């Protein structure tokens, strides 16, 4: 009896200790390239993400957004500083990066296999995940037979196949048309609410950030520093074209423009 109850207890403990941040980034700097002439990609970044929080990181190109994501995903180690990520992460790219030799279902099944899901459970679970991104009818298509938006949906389903506490997204909808992106925003928001995982979403589109985020973090360029944080207290669901979103986006966009001009960057 007690042995059975223990795991549940442990899970509840995790849930109740929500004061502990999901992600804790402390004074992280990152140098790239030749050690004699290093490029400082990140400079003294500190950042917390709470459990279940949706944080958008906004910055011009060259602000080290992707570097930061790689660090959080555990693909790189910081040169200076510390990073603590509680729980598991999953990463989604700007390019869908689907495996071209597999069908949509196969791509999701690989993620399930790597997550340790038993063989007989993979197929129904993959189909369930594809259903959540409204692609159940396209399970047998290969990536080259899908549109850009569909590919990103498969990538989202694949990222969600990995049970994770933190979903990292690297400009995932950057290459899509406005209408498709709008629909995917709705789906992402719905899945985020369903799953309750924390999300760190990188974008250079301020309105997209305000549409999605609980909090927007603004990074400067070369080197990347946190220059501003903006809490977004708009009621959900939001519309990217709504005046409220535009109103909140304006000062952030203004601040971003200052940064870009100050650095003479593109």
């Amino acid at each position, binding site marked *: 009896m007690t042995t059975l109850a223990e795991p549940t207890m442990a899970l509840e403990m995790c849930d109740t200790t929500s004061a502990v941040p999901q992600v804790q980034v402390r004074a992280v700097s990152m140098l790239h390239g030749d050690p004699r002439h290093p490029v400082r990609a990140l400079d003294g970044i500190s950042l917390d993400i709470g459990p279940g929080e949706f944080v958008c990181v906004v910055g011009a190109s060259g602000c080290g957004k992707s570097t930061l994501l790689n660090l959080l995903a555990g693909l790189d180690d910081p040169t200076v500083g510390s990073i603590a990520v509680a729980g598991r*992460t999953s990463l989604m790219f700007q390019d869908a990066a*689907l495996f*071209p*030799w597999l069908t949509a279902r196969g791509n999701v099944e690989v993620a399930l296999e*790597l997550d340790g899901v038993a063989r007989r459970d993979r197929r129904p679970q993959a189909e369930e995940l594809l259903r959540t991104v409204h692609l159940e009818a396209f399970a047998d298509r*290969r990536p080259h037979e899908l549109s850009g938006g569909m590919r990103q949906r498969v990538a989202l389903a694949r990222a969600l196949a*990995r049970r994770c506490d933190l979903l990292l997204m690297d400009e995932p909808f950057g290459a899509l048309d406005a209408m498709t992106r709008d629909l995917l925003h709705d789906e992402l928001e719905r899945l985020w609410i369903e799953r309750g995982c924390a999300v760190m979403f990188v974008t250079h589109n301020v309105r997209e950030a305000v549409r999605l985020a609980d909090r927007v973090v603004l990074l400067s360029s070369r080197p990347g520093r946190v220059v501003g944080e903006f809490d977004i207290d708009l009621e959900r669901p939001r519309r990217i074209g709504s005046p409220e979103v535009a109103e909140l986006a304006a000062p952030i966009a203004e601040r971003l423009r200052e940064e870009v001009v100050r650095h003479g960057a593109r």
Partner: protein
Amino acid sequence: MALVEPPIAVTPEQEELAGLDALAQAESAGRRSGQGSFGAVWSATWPKLVAVVVVLVLWQVVAWSGWRPWYVLPGPAPVLRRLLEDLSTAATWHAVATTMRRALLGFSLAVVIGLALGVAVSRSEVLRRGIGSLLTGVQTMPSIAWFPLALILFQFSEGAIFFVVVIGGAPSVANGVISGIDHVPPLLIRAGRTLGAQGWSLLRLVILPAALPAIVGGLKQGWAFAWRSLLAGELIVILGSRPSLGARLELMRQSADSVGLIATMLLLLCIGVAVDAAGFGPLERHLRRRRGLEVS
């Protein structure tokens, strides 16, 4: 579309439309269309037929010119007649069976060794520096140059043949695997790693499938090298109890049977073409189509 149509009577016109529709669909799905229709088969065949006819005519002209006496260089007619005769004897098929059995066994061994070697070299920097260029060196070495050593090691036995076949085929397979793995898009490897793949699972689920087209290219080249080595070996290692195609060539040379010699060579050529047409060709096309790389 044609499949989901309700089973009502269709006029020939409608049927034709459905057919066209199916054709367009197959094309849009990246498939080759018109397979099985006479026109497509004909358009694929006639250039080959013309090429064969041109070669036969040139051969006949050289034979007629009297450059060599007819019993040394016969024309196509007696050779083709002999080929047909040979194909109706059990001895020929026995020889084909021996040679093909050796080819398949030797090539399988070369594939296993080449795959293991290729994966090991591509995943280990030390091995790559150590034997990476050696592999290419061994690959360019003519198989016939291995024979003296093979004969010392294995005497006149099938072991000597297998030794040369494996050493002829394995480096090509290994090099195909290495270049295939080297050219896997880094993004796919990153995607695999973020999904939790590492070590063996990364190799099995991401790297090897991504490298598969190049690996098949290596297999194809390895087969060509193995097949050449095999025939060279059969010319030298002739076992009385095991008639093979190579042994036939050598025996026909010794008895100055030009007609039989050229007929056997044609048979070898046909086997080479058949292996490519029935094996590697469709396999490569299948892989390319599945990945959306085939344009037609």
